[in-house]
């Protein structure tokens, strides 16, 4: 394992060397990073992958902090700031904001929960064990909520945010019916 972790650190260092320089070094670095992750997984399962990932992240952070420390000081110009304009941007559309909150938090939460629950019922019907079906509900709900929220928050208005939770609810109903 120590060798794999060393490989991870060397891999990140090579990625850094290759950044904006030799593409070969960067490619070798990424290959070493991938090899360390796969090796960690083969040697110690999820524990090995987790430890290798953490070491890689820490190595990259150290290099980034070093870059910050060595960055040259630059002339700082005063920030241009426009004079405040009265009445602009002061709760201009409270109703829209409340609608966005309701759609992305309670509505998306409920839709994700329903879809995760229906998914586990479907999995049970297909022969999944009780423990796996339970874990599917627990893990599925936050992941689905996140996916719905991401979809909603990249839409242009509350009206367009309804589609994602509605689709999740419909798919959930279909899965529940099929189970």
């Amino acid at each position, binding site marked *: 394992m120590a060798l794999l972790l060393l490989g991870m650190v060397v891999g990140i260092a090579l990625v*850094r060397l290759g*950044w904006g320089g030799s593409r070969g070094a960067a490619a070798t670095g990424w290959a070493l990073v991938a090899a360390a992750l796969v090796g960690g997984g083969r040697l110690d*399962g*999820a*524990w*090995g992958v*987790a*430890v290798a*990932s*953490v070491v890689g*992240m*820490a190595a*990259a*952070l150290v*290099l*980034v*902090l070093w*870059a*910050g420390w060595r*960055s*040259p*000081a*630059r002339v*700082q110009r*005063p*920030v*241009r*700031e*426009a004079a*405040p*304009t009265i009445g*602009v*941007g002061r709760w201009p559309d409270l109703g829209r904001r409340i609608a*966005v909150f309701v759609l*992305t938090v309670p509505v998306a*939460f409920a839709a994700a*929960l329903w879809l995760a*629950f229906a998914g*586990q*019922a479907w999995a049970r019907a297909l022969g999944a*064990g*009780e*423990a*796996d*079906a*339970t*874990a*599917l*509900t*627990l893990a599925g709900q*936050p*992941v689905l*909520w*996140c996916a719905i*929220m*991401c979809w*909603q*928050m*990249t*839409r242009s208005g509350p009206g367009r945010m309804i589609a994602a939770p509605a689709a999740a609810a419909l798919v959930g109903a279909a899965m529940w019916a099929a189970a």
Partner: protein
Amino acid sequence: MQRALAGHAAIGLLASALIYLLALTGTVVVIHDRWQRWEQPGAAEVANLSPDAAQAAILGAVARDAGKPRTTHLYLRMPNADLPRAVVTSDHGASYVDAAGRVAGPEAHAWIEFVIGLHEYLHLPATWGLIVVGGLGVALAALVVTGVLAHPRILRDAFRLRARHGAQVARVDWHNRLGVWTLPFVLALALTGAFIGLGSVGFSVLARAYTGGDMEKAYAPIFGREPAADAAPAPLPEIGRALRTLAVRVPAARPTYVIVHDPGTRGQHVQILAEHPRRLIYGESYAFDGRGAWRGAAGLSDGALGQQFAASTYNLHFGNYGGLGVEIAYMLGGLALCGVTATGTTMWLAKRRRRGLGGRRLTACWTAVVWGVPLALVATAWLRAIAGPVAPLVLAFWTMMAAGVAAAAIWPRWTGERGLRMVLAAALVVTGLGHGLVLAPRVPAVLGIDAVLIVLGILGLFVDRRLLTRRLHLG
């Protein structure tokens, strides 16, 4: 891309202060066992607790609680390298025990318990607090996804950090660089946090659907079943025998907790949670009857994939699976997340001011949150030191935060970022020095925390000078 950026900003604004609070407290509680030693440096320490001493400890706890209603559970925390202390806990309190299993003084690590409570449920009623924190985990995961969508070329400058350019350029670089390199870590933390926080909701739904509302039966497929209760009186269980049996049957397992359910009744049973080396699971749960006879394992280590997955989320979130090295990396990652959160909102506020939308008071309030939270945490540690473990830490923390934010809103000019940062750095130095001089700890791990606090404070002053004061100002 524009819509992704707008969505990223909107989620950030919705949740940034609470996510920052969770990130900072999470960074602190990664080493909560070490903080417990720091908070009570004089408590009894034991490297190992023998089965006979473990038996004596639960007998001692029951004797300690004489005259009080019968406890529903007894917990015996076994010593380990991070916290070489044994603690026996009942419904009526917790006490350290010595190497012979004798009760040796109350457990009173109120400050770190307060910080853990802040991180796990924001001091709200427990279930609701867990759900809110779980929801914030989902919001953080959504911020990571929308952040990547909004910055398609985010990897291009992955190693460029112009920390000493103009404030706005520096903030953008800090935000993007730290965000990129902590992305897998933050995503894992956010989703495991959401899994843990929202688990109660999922179990409630499953209980309503399949077990007639019985939560214990809903938990059973993952954590194992509990035998039926029988309230008739019986002698206390033989946990020493259970520990010896476990040592023979699973020599690699390291017991972390011994839990006696319904002690002193005929329905009592013993559960031993034991770590398995080089595994991500928090441990396996081994069941024994009241006489200490083996019943079997729940299957967290080798059962269904769903059980192993669920048992792995906790250590992955808390970072306690690879010793001090992984803990330090988690703290570094946690601090990076604090930086990403703080700079994200600051950038949005600066943009707002450049557009003439005002926000001077809002900026001051955000500064009060970013620097006020760590200052309030240090202040509560001092309050704990002065007033003892019964000090009203929760009330003090939220009062300080409310007063700080209100003061920033009323007198925005007085809420200077640099001043607060200097005060925090000085407070860290004074805390480390004060703890070391007044309590005179002799354990290297505790002295190490004092040294880190002092170094961090001094470094804060020095880094501030290097990164900020050498900039040249025009105009």
